[in-house]
């Protein structure tokens, strides 16, 4: 795999390395040579959008896999099933004889679930492929991207009123993760969600050190941090209970808004919070664990004395690197006289660990799939090579997909198999579906029209029509998006 990254005039760092890593993980090649070059060019500035490197790598390889399967007479899902990662799948180059590996991968299951729900075999078997000028084709694509980081802080306060206030430093992208990840903490403490508040918005609100909102890491990183803070709070509750009610801390349990000894004494969280204020020190935030970030320490200092304050760094172990996976399925209908095509159906089947919030997850999986679909069906970025100036400045020129460019009933599903290397089992999902959205459309087009018709994205009416006319690809694959 030889990747040349045209990075415009400024940014010397390209995404070519990421494309190599993702491809080596997603298709588990037994041997792979990779080379990446970043070139600075005197062209308009650009920057990564979503799934940088991963999108490109997968979209390069997927049509090749599809073609190989056709040549071999192997089913498209089957060939991917054979080659896709499983469990602690290795990726990237060997360093000192050892290769890195993923925390987990259940992509085979995702493929199976997707194929079943999409009725893959039925669609493949359906005849005829062509009616009049219309041809249908189905495509499947694997997709993955990094799905989480570790080492951030959680912070919560149990108030004397018995409410649990989660301090959330997550930037809200509208994915709800700013709120959702704290459910992990509420669950640990056994507090109904209605008794919880989430404080978020800006740094004046005394928020803990948090990952940036990007890189599909939030769900993974911050469920861990929320879990850690809740475990810290639980520990403190047990200690307070032991202090006040006697016995050893480990004899106490936390649940139903109480801390209690089985069949014995108990107190409410509200009471425990009041005691925490009385006790001071580590209990109400006047003392902070040494390993939390200085920003978290400052926030804790500001919150001290308001109740039981628990701050903790995510120190949970993780064996491997975290990735999330998607198997994407698409069917297209192409009019061979005009080159115009429609996406008939689309399904994304996700392996993202534990599902935290199904509706938000669905929005993410289909939303980012649509971003990828946009790259397949028309989104482009045109500049005049003589002047190096953008000409596609308007939406009708650079063509982000509209609601009518995707099926009105898109489907998604998720496995809900926890990742073993994180306490809550949840991984991030933002970027993993992007490449699948793009490549499944390209593969469906190849299925409808043949492998040799187009060799680049976006595929528009013009690409298809010129090539069908000539019987071979007419646009150079490396030619700018036009």
């Amino acid at each position: 795999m030889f990747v040349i990254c045209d990075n415009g005039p400024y940014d010397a760092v390209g995404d070519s390395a990421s494309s190599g890593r993702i491809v080596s993980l997603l298709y588990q090649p037994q041997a792979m040579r990779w080379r990446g070059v970043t070139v600075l060019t005197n062209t308009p500035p650009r920057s990564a959008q979503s799934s940088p490197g991963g999108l490109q790598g997968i979209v390069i390889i997927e049509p090749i896999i599809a073609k190989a399967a056709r040549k071999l007479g192997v089913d498209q899902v089957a060939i991917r099933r054979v080659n896709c990662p499983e469990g602690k799948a290795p990726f990237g180059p060997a360093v000192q004889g050892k290769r890195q590996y993923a925390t987990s991968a259940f992509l085979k299951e995702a493929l199976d679930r997707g194929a079943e729900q999409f009725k893959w075999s039925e669609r493949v078997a359906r005849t005829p492929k062509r009616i009049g000028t219309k041809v249908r084709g189905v495509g499947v694509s694997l997709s993955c991207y990094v799905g989480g980081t570790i080492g951030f802080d959680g912070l919560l306060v149990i108030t004397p009123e018995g409410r649990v206030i989660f301090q959330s430093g997550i930037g809200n992208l509208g994915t709800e993760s700013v709120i959702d990840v704290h459910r992990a903490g509420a669950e640990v403490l056994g507090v109904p969600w209605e008794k919880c508040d989430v404080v978020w918005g800006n740094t004046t609100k005394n928020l803990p050190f948090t990952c940036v909102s990007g890189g599909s890491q939030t769900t993974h990183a911050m469920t861990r941090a929320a879990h850690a803070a809740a475990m810290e709070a639980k520990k403190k509750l047990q200690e307070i209970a032991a202090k006040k009610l006697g016995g050893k801390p480990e004899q106490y349990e936390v649940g139903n808004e109480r801390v209690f000894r089985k069949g014995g004494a108990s107190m409410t969280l509200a009471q425990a919070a009041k005691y925490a204020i009385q006790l001071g020190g580590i209990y109400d935030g006047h003392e902070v664990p040494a390993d939390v970030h200085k920003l978290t320490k400052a926030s804790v200092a500001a919150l001290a004395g308001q109740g039981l304050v628990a701050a903790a760094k995510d120190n949970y172990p993780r064996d491997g690197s975290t990735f999330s996976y998607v198997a994407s399925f698409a069917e297209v209908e192409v009019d061979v006289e005009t080159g115009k095509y429609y996406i008939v159906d689309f399904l994304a089947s996700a392996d993202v660990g534990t599902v935290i919030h199904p509706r938000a997850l669905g929005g993410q999986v289909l939303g980012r799939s649509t971003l990828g679909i946009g790259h397949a069906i028309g989104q482009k970025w045109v500049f005049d090579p003589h002047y190096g100036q953008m000409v596609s400045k308007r939406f009708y020129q650079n063509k982000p997909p509209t609601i009518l460019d995707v099926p009105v009933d898109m489907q998604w599903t998720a496995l809900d198999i926890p990742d073993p290397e994180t306490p809550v089992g949840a991984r991030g999902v933002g970027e993993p579906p992007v490449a699948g959205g793009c490549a499944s459309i390209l593969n469906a087009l190849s299925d409808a029209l043949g492998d040799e018709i187009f060799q680049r994205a976006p595929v528009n009416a013009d690409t298809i029509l010129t090539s069908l006319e000539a019987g071979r690809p007419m646009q150079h694959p490396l030619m700018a998006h036009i």
Partner: protein
Amino acid sequence: MADKTDFNTSEGVPKAVSRRNFIKGVITSGVAVSSASYLFRASTPLNGQQSAVGVGERLITLNVNGQQRRVDAMKQETLASTLRYKLGLTGTKLGCDRAECGSCTVLIDDIPYYACSVLTHTVRGRKVLTIEGLANRDGTLHPVQQGVIDEQGFQCAFCMPGFIMATVGFLKTKPNPTRQELAQGISGNLCRCQDYDKILTSLMRGAENLRRSNRG
């Protein structure tokens, strides 16, 4: 050149306010950025043309969300600007400002328009409805808004006011649409989170809510 700059910026010297500095001042004061362009762009031929056909006053009354609002609007001002920057109705978003993204969609006499591409002066005497005017006075959300809450329709939701207004407008002509029909109806709006599927689901719920509330 340098001398002139010094002259304008040095203290104590009587200030010959240059046009650039004046505009800067206006911008920093944050009040009437818009009037700068009125004062200093091509001097408009108002003098002696008051009686000319069709020429209007700047001070106009608009019917926005059922209220009569007096507003001083420039001739070249768009409705989106007036709503946001003169009337404080920032629920109407300005995305592309080129009639492409739909985030500025408002209803004018019950019809969805891109407010970024309507001159404020052309809506005199017409009823403008923005997202702020949808909910009841008592705070009860419009059924379509409620549908969005019910189904968590949007992600970043910058496009949401536009989508909701487009939906409310479309449902006036077709209260019981199919998913396909509603998608057509709101196809003039873009969502860059690309959450179209969930948006459509929530707006379908909104349509259902609306039919139910009309029935009841």
